[in-house]
């Protein structure tokens, strides 16, 4: 079954061992190997994380004290817009796709992804998309300044000329994501080792399968939304403008019909990662494995019927607000199941606190805080007060930074020794963890208070009573930002083997029963499994 893949990729292997810059470049440009592409995705997302993070540093520098300091108001709007867009589409999403590329074939006992050529293309669209997006900053009239949500008419009537480049970049990102999702689904269905049933798949694979379906369902809706914006801008249509019979509120419905599943696209793979890490370091199988799969599916389904909770303040019939409020609150049930299962996995476990475990545990605690503030925001009358304040900013950074980003860092620390064959310095990694943990909370926790006190988001200046908390937030932000340079240092030095510790195939004591990836060498062979491994169902089933 696998012979076709081995012979045909063996040829490729030979090309890879040429020398000189041309050979090096063509290796990365033309690679169809899932590990190479996974590495490209991860490095790309890391670069975007640092870039969008430095934009956040500028935002926090401007907000360090009241009044206008560093940037003018339009540039401030560009900074918040670019920070959001790049973190969502350039940092978090590609990081998860990179992890999927690296881990899925290894976890499923496959030699590679099912569609390697398309895999190459879906990665290489991204550097072009983001070059186009970032280049708009230097164009006449400036880059996008309407927030990552690009509400009409800010993105139509009142938008800078460069918005068309933004639209094209979003189209490219969408195509890339859809191709990545198709590849993942086909790999999971058709390249899984025959002895592994669907229900046997690791939770990370399950979470990605469901995420991939979400991507396929909603990325085309985003593509439609930007297409309508383009048509309104240039082709005389009036989808979102009242004078032609359109409606700007329609934009918000379409955007959030995409946007709410999108925010779950950024958290479901994180659930999968944490569900892999906690059992390893608690030395127990995951509690409630099957209920985890049902919970992820339920969350994915619910994500399609809650979108208007982002727009309570826009106005809608009371019955509609009730529907969206209660459907939003129901999401707390499957999410609660997941939190309960993680905590139960820890219960009476033989727990050790290696760096990936620290990040995973921080995820469980801090994501839950973000979940609670989300429940508060779901309450319609309360949302009228919280809408567009720093309370919302605090909420979504708790679920995205200490949620998605911490999970990605946990995954990096968990699998980095597997990928590189070298262990990193636990002391440095733990130092990075504590800096991030303190920096993150110092940055985002006071934002709750600022929001409750009425500080609006996306505004470059603020009233004097907010000055103290903003100073604390900015200091926390600088700490969190700077500590990611330590992360960069650790990753580079580990990849170069500079910490001098070889990783065993199992990497973590007792990890072997938790997945096929731990039966391969560290680093694993270029083509993960050339013969399908046999899946042995755990005894406790």
């Amino acid at each position, binding site marked *: *079954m696998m*012979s*076709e893949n081995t012979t045909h990729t063996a040829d490729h292997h030979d090309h890879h061992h040429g020398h000189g810059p041309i050979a090096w470049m063509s290796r990365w440009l033309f690679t169809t190997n899932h590990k190479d592409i996974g590495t490209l995705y991860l490095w790309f997302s890391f670069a975007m994380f640092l870039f969008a993070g430095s934009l956040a540093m500028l935002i926090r520098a401007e907000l360090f004290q009241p009044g206008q300091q560093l940037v003018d108001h339009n540039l401030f709007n560009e900074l918040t817009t670019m920070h959001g867009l790049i973190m969502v589409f350039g940092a978090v999403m590609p990081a998860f796709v990179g992890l999927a590329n690296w881990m899925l074939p290894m976890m499923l006992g496959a030699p590679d992804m*099912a*569609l390697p050529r398309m895999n190459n293309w879906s990665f290489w669209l991204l550097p072009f998309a983001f070059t186009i997006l970032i280049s708009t900053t230097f164009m006449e009239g400036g880059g996008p300044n309407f927030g990552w949500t690009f509400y009409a008419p800010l993105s139509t*009537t009142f938008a800078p000329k460069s918005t068309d480049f933004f639209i094209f970049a979003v189209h490219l990102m969408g195509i890339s994501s*859809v191709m990545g*999702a*198709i590849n993942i*689904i*086909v790999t999971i*269905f*058709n390249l899984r080792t025959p002895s592994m049933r669907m229900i046997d798949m690791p939770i990370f694979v399950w979470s990605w399968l469901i995420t991939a379906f979400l991507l*396929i*369902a*909603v*990325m*085309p*809706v985003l*593509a*439609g*939304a930007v297409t*309508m914006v383009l048509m309104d801008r240039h082709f005389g249509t009036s*989808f979102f*403008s*009242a*004078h*032609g*019979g359109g*409606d700007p*509120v*329609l934009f918000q*419905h*379409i955007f959030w*019909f995409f946007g709410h599943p999108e925010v779950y696209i950024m958290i479901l793979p994180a659930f999968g990662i944490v569900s892999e890490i906690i059992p390893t370091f608690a030395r127990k199988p995951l509690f409630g494995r099957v209920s985890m799969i049902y919970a992820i599916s339920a969350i994915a389904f619910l994500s399609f019927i809650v979108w208007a909770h982002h727009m309570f303040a826009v*106005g*809608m*019939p009371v019955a*509609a607000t009730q529907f969206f409020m209660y459907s939003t609150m129901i999401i707390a049930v499957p999410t609660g199941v997941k939190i309960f299962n993680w905590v139960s996995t820890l219960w009476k476990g033989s727990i050790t606190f290696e760096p990936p475990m620290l990040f995973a545990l921080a995820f469980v605690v801090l994501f839950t805080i973000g979940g609670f503030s989300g429940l508060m925001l779901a309450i319609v009358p309360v949302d009228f007060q919280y809408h567009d304040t720093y309370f919302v900013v605090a909420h979504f950074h708790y679920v995205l930074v200490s949620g998605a980003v911490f999970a990605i860092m946990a995954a990096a620390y968990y699998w980095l020794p597997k990928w590189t064959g070298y262990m990193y310095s636990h002391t440095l990694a733990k130092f990075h963890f504590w800096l991030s943990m303190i920096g993150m909370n110092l940055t985002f926790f006071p934002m709750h208070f600022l929001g409750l006190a009425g500080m609006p988001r996306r505004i470059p200046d603020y009233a004097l009573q907010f000055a103290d908390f903003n100073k604390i937030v900015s200091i926390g932000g600088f700490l969190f930002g700077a500590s990611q340079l330590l992360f960069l240092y650790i990753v580079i030095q580990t990849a170069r083997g500079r910490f001098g510790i070889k990783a065993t195939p199992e990497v973590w004591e007792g990890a072997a029963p938790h997945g096929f990836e731990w039966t391969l060498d560290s680093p694993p062979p270029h083509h993960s499994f050339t013969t399908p491994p046999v899946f042995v169902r755990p005894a406790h089933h």
Partner: protein
Amino acid sequence: MSTVVSQRNKKNHRLIAWLLVTVVVMFAFCFAMVPLYEKICNEIGLLGKTTNQRVRVSNFSSEDLTRSIEVDMVSHVSTQIHWDFYPLTTKVNVHPGQVKRVDFYAKNRDDKTIVSKTVFSVTPSIAAPYVKKAECFTFKPQTLAAGAITTLPTIFFIDKDLPKSVTKISLSYALFDTNAK
């Protein structure tokens, strides 16, 4: 061995085809949301929208004298149209079923002929389905030559089935230039 490979390729292609169909369907669904949203808004009065169609008055001849509704007339003028536009009466009291006429003043201050379009909406939106119009300038675009002045009539009545909780209604008329970008 090659049959196994071609079988797997066939399986892959079938799955890819289904996924691509989903992508196309969802892209189309995005555009289908436009008429769907319009229909839902008009039917349930979401955002105070109405079907804004002519209703024959003779069907509603009797008045409900037990109730009196305050109706505020509100005008908005888009920043992109250089017209003066406002209701000549800003507040009227009507009994449900009572037919009322209110005139709007309109002047084209621009130096060229402008075709305008007025978007009509009702607050609170719960009252939207009960506002009926026998005649209204919002039914079709209005053209005014440079400097021209006119009076634009709206003839409406409130349906007697209006929920008892509503005692005050605002009728909003937002004026736009049909040629504006």
